[in-house]
């Protein structure tokens, strides 16, 4: 029996139930939400509970009593006797060693649990295919009993085939969404590189902010010794990512399309890691619809035009490059030119406005030259190998272009996994490909037009990707803004620091009020995790990133 900290109190108004119980404890006993405690139960079993709420009460009948107790409002009174007071704690039942779930009995002692008992309580012992997802700390305030233990989840419930996809939410900066995703990806890559596992995995990451992910294979010089030790304690190494390739949007001038500086790219080029990606009309015209993903098209006129072009109607079959393509569109925009009555000139003009702006970007080019390390993204993704990480930089592109590229990447991965590309032996295709995209709200929010090809693609991946081996790791500030079918299909959810408005939304209805409020106070590097194999939400921590951080 660990240190006894209180006893169960079952009252008329607050009985103990199958789901929860109350116990009293000293007002000086520091406990935190998510702490595990244990209670003796019948047949010498032990019931485990997780602290949900802590209240302090005294015998003060009313505020008036308190006022009177200070000589009717004298703020300097120091009474001889402390008012009788104690804390009472509401805890949720998470398990019983003998599967006995009748309510715990009044007066039973409540005590702190050991590390092994905490594992048992939270269902963290005997986890198959363990993959570290952080560590938890308990009883932090009491130095003797403090417990710190790594948390593992069953990787089959994170990256399939049992459960797949992860969604991370939290406000920018404070939640460290990217850092947490990268921590998980590090754990996954480490596991697949160092352990004998039947299947294999590759990663495609989209860099959407500054230079965030543009040096993930370089080590973080500012990482403290403690953080490095933390990685080792979690069963990982303290090295940055391996087998990384970077794909930058092509431009005449480096700075036009990327935040990366010349030295960085040169350095990566020398190490044979950096590539420039381009879009070539002949191969990529079929992706034109992706440029329209955020545009309302109720009459489906834009879709008609795209179909018109892809099916090479009119003169579109004879076109080789983007300039010719624009010229051809120009023709359709002239008054009285419309031979096809279905599509009006006005529609062609709208189409032109949208397309012209996008096609001005240098990534729409005549051809990609291999000698100059230029490539088409689709071609590169086709050749992705197991354990490889592709970082695709889209940070400096405008929103429309970002959608276009993300859509293209998803299509390429999808086609690869469906075996749509000829000439690639099946054994060369990684059995799982994890795509990480930040700011998911840009592509899959509730406001996105229902016919958006990207939204459809994302829904498809979240609904079918588990069996295909396409796993989506997504992040956004506000989970409530994300399309229900997308978040509903994520097996794992990570909640970082968020704000009060967000937690008042429906998505957080099932979360106890204290945890909700905790979400508004979470520190950087702290997450609340939900996964099918955990018996309750877990409050976990993770160390600072291993890879180079740009300021």
């Amino acid at each position: 029996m660990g240190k006894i900290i209180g006893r169960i109190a079952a009252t008329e108004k607050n009985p103990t139930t199958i789901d929860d119980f109350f116990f009293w404890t000293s007002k000086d006993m520091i406990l935190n939400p998510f702490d595990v405690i244990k209670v003796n139960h019948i047949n010498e079993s032990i019931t485990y509970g997780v602290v949900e709420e802590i209240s302090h009460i005294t015998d003060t009948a009313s505020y008036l009593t308190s006022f009177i107790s200070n000589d009717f409002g004298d703020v300097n009174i120091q009474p001889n006797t402390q008012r009788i007071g104690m804390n009472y704690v509401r805890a949720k039942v998470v398990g019983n060693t003998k599967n006995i779930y009748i309510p715990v009995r009044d007066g039973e002692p409540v005590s702190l649990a050991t590390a092994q008992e905490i594992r048992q309580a939270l269902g963290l012992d005997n986890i198959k295919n363990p993959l570290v997802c952080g560590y938890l700390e308990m009883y932090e305030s009491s130095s003797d009993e403090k417990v710190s233990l790594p948390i593992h989840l069953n990787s089959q419930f994170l990256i399939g085939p049992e459960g797949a996809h992860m969604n991370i939410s939290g406000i920018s900066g404070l939640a460290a969404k990217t850092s947490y995703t990268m921590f998980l990806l590090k754990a996954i890559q480490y596991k697949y590189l160092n352990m004998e596992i039947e299947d294999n995995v590759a990663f495609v990451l989209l860099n959407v902010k500054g230079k965030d992910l543009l040096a993930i294979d370089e080590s973080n010089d500012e990482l403290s010794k403690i953080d490095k030790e933390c990685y080792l304690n979690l069963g990982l190494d303290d090295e940055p990512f391996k087998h990384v390739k970077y794909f930058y949007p092509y431009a005449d001038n480096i700075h036009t399309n990327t935040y990366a500086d010349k030295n960085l790219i040169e350095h990566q080029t020398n190490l044979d890691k950096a590539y420039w990606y381009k879009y070539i009309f002949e191969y990529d015209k079929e992706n034109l619809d992706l440029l329209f993903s955020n545009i309302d098209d109720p009459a489906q006129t834009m879709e008609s035009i795209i179909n018109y072009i892809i099916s090479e109607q009119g003169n579109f079959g004879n076109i080789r490059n983007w300039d010719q393509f624009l010229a051809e569109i120009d023709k359709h925009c002239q008054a009285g030119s419309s031979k096809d009555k279905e599509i009006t000139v006005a529609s062609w003009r709208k189409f032109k406005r949208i397309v012209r702006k996008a096609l001005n970007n240098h990534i729409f080019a005549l051809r990609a030259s291999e000698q100059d390390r230029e490539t088409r993204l689709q071609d590169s993704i086709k050749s992705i190998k197991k354990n490889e990480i592709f970082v695709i930089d889209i940070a400096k592109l405008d929103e429309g272009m970002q959608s276009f590229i993300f859509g293209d990447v998803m299509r390429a991965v999808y086609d690869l996994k469906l075996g749509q590309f000829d000439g690639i032996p099946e054994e060369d295709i990684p059995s799982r490909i994890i795509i990480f995209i930040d700011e998911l709200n840009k592509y899959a929010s509730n406001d996105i037009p229902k016919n958006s090809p990207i939204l459809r693609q994302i829904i498809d991946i979240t609904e079918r990707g588990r069996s295909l081996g396409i796993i989506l790791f997504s992040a956004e500030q506000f989970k409530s803004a994300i399309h229900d079918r997308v978040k509903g299909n994520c097996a794992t959810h990570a909640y970082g620091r968020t704000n009060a408005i967000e937690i008042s939304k429906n998505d957080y209805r099932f979360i106890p009020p204290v945890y909700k409020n905790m979400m508004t106070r979470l520190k950087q590097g702290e997450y609340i995790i939900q996964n099918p194999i955990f018996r309750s939400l877990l409050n976990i921590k993770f160390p600072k990133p291993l890879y180079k951080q740009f300021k």
Partner: protein
Amino acid sequence: MLNKILSFVETETSGKSYKTHKYCFDGIEMPHLVYDDQPNLTLKQYGESEKITSPRHLYNKSKQIEKFSQPLFKYFLDGSRRTYKVDDMAYDNRVYPIIAGQIGVGCCERDKRKNLKSKLIEHQLVMAVPENASKDNKKKLFFNNLVTKINEQNFIKTRGLNFSKILDYADIKLQIGEKYENLGIAKIQDEMIEQEKRIVSSLVYKNLLNEDSYLLKDGSLEYKTMKTGDFKDLSIIKSNYKCVVGVSKSFNPEKCIDARGHSNAQKIAELKLYHRTPAFMWESKVSRGTEGNVKFSIWYLRIRDAKYTSSPFEGIIKVEKILISEQEQKYGLKTEEIDTISANLINERNPVCYGKDNRWANHLYPVYLTEVFIKSKYLSNEYFLNLF
């Protein structure tokens, strides 16, 4: 049917049980004023070393104590009892009530962090039956045997209960207005007082009471001399009370008469905040024992402003202390000691139990807590009554 206590008693005492309605006396009592102190209090002489004639203001002294020293009172004692009528039993064609009771006496200690902790607690279950329930003269032996037999009953054993005593009340011819019930209740009350005295004695025995750690007892210290019990004569055990102060929440102001036979009530009512009356000496008639009358110093102290209370006597407590040395018995308590005790009592005024107890203005919080603690140990009325 379960062999409950009453049917067992019925057989053992060869009486006849009427299985009347069982109830708790405390719940059905008509509201009436109960005073903690003895009636007809006549204050005879000055009870302190200095001859003071007007109330003394003690706020500054109380502040000084608060600032420079530890509180004087470290232990707090209270006793309470709950009585029940559980049956009517016939012996020799007369019908007598059977009274049962729960007695709780507890002492709490205040630690350095100002928290109250339990020091000693005694919780007893007792019954009071007429003395002629024992048909022979050896009634003490009979009732001792009876209680042992009751405790051996499975019904009691399995519940982990234990009756400590069967008290016998006198089988006398009742005067007008007198009831056997009251005789039984009085017996239980006496038993409670006996326990209180026992606890004081045990604190003294353990050397816990001294000049720096006093015991504050709820209610009067004026114990009447009893016929039986280990502590029946207060005059013999009075030295136990050297560091004990009794504080009564309620007292009958009309009965406070000074040496000239005039009522003191107005003077007490008009006491200003944090003032005390001069102390009077009082010789108790009821606690007269083998070593003569026990003498007390008695004074009144206002701890709450009259403007906040509903009657002028609320907020005033009656303080008493037994005079022990010959010096004290002759000249009264030292004025310095009375002031110190009073100032410390003023410092006990906060917090209050307003909203929980109507007597909040007269209650001292640690005493109130001790009372709550004792009552929390009681078996619930339903549970207790169903034992019979």
